[in-house]
């Protein structure tokens, strides 16, 4: 089974977000980058599926050269090879077009992604890639097992989950508890250095949605503390001051 996992290169979840150049650029200063947490679940499940069924795992990122350490980490976790589509990821559409192009070329049996990136939070790329390749897409997928050419999965729905059966190939956006995040071991880190990381050109540059300006949420005021002996005062404030009851 040939599995493609699409990963993002995103600020660590503890990062403080700031912008520069009159709020038109993300400030990378001091920011640690990681594999997107949902993409990390997808990768972990892909590696498990490969271990169970044989085959290969390819990771793909649409990004500039600075994402390569993140791609190497995915190789250390257990992917066999990697593709970097050399482009700045500007919007979901251009990213999806690029992924679809190389995914088609690779004829994968399964394409796994995260349910969403944690920088754009669009939740769109898996759906777009599926549509571009004429494949079904599912998200957020919480369990995924393969038997022969059929996948059994569960997808989160409001207040619970639903169970699905579908024939390969398809695209899935993953979330926990599909697998546990894997931490690369020493051997993985060593072998990752020599695994192939192919840099390929962007095939699509049309952008439909462009970020003009960024802003931060308004500063929170001081918290109003209520006496623990008198929670009724909290109810009073929520009712009469905040007017949310």
């Amino acid at each position: 089974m040939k599995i493609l996992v699409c990963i993002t290169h995103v600020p660590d979840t503890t990062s403080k977000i700031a912008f520069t150049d009159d709020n038109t650029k993300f400030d990378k200063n001091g920011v640690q980058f990681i594999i997107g947490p949902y993409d990390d679940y997808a990768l972990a499940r892909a590696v498990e599926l490969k271990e169970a069924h044989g085959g290969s795992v390819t990771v793909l990122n649409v990004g500039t050269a600075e994402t390569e350490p993140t791609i190497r980490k995915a190789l250390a976790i257990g992917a066999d090879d990697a593709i970097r589509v050399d482009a700045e990821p500007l919007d979901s559409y251009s990213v999806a077009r690029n992924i679809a192009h190389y995914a088609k070329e690779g004829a994968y049996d399964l394409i796994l992604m995260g349910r969403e990136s944690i920088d754009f939070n669009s939740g769109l790329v898996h759906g777009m890639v599926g549509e571009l390749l004429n494949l079904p897409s599912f998200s957020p997928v919480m369990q995924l097992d393969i038997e022969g050419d059929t996948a059994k999965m569960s997808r989160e729905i409001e207040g619970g989950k639903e169970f699905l059966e579908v024939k390969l190939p398809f695209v899935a956006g993953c979330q926990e508890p599909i697998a546990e995040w894997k931490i690369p071991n020493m051997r993985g880190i060593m072998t990752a250095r020599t695994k192939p990381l192919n840099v390929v050109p962007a095939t699509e540059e049309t952008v439909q949605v462009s970020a003009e300006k960024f802003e931060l949420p308004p500063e929170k005021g001081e918290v109003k503390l209520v006496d623990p002996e008198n929670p009724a005062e909290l109810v009073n404030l929520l009712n009469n001051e905040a007017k949310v009851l």
Partner: protein
Amino acid sequence: MSILVFAESADGSIKKSSLEAISYALEMGGDVTALALGTIDASEMEALGKNGAQKVLHVEDERLNQGHIAAYATAIAQAMDHTGANILVLAKSSLSDIVAAKVAIKNGAGIATNVSELPDTSNGFTVKRSIYTGKAFANVSLTTDKKILGIKKNVVALKEDGGQATVEKFDVTFDDADFGAQITGSEVAEGDVLLTEAEIVVSGGRGLKGPENWGMIEELAKELGAATGCSKPVSDIGWRPHHEHVGQTGVKVSPNLYIAVGISGAIQHLAGVNSSKVLVAINKDPEAPFFKAADYGIVGDAFEVVPKLIEAVKKLK
């Protein structure tokens, strides 16, 4: 401007978040058509009109009672063509983004999800959307003729002063592949207020020590008509079901009121709740980071504070 709104339903009822989407479309100005899929109660069609839809397209196909992503996308794309709508609005749900992504490709529309305000059309078409998991916003401009907006909960108030919508049957040409995935079953918590739809959420963290102590969280939630949520470790250990997990890697909520009990306020938890209108923290540690994000707080032992809080809420009624 002609706007189509996807009126998502569950068990014959239109979701409240979809009614918000209709009110949103109405505020944008223009003709608002709602698209309803599957079996829908007649009274629900009235709600669509009352909230601002002038027309409802109804695809009666019973197969659509289940959330077939591909079929929904086909139906919405055809409805957009049929009405000549240049804008599609959807409310955030577990399937709306992925369905919208497919419609975007089918109809060549530019798309923005996580939208948190009405668009600004004074110079082109820009919308504000939440990015970096609620830690920032981006004003994005959409340059395509057709546009799709996925809106967050609580972006606009329900209008409820509209009239009667005319209901029109709408036939969609489906492909076999649209129903290619078999939905074999589901597991849904019965009777609870849905986390994603709730106006108030009461969440518990590891500070509650064990699942046996959730009785008071559920009782407080019940008194407030709230949904219950939890922090990630709580669902990881299995104290609470996964769908209650709130935060960066879980459900993102934006209710009017979010009450966090025994939750430290790690940045990844806050990422899922920071667009709530009012945040309340109850924690015995005055240094808990949640107090930096909260509007109101009680520094105290949850096991003493929450029962008193329940009593106070009961008295209010």
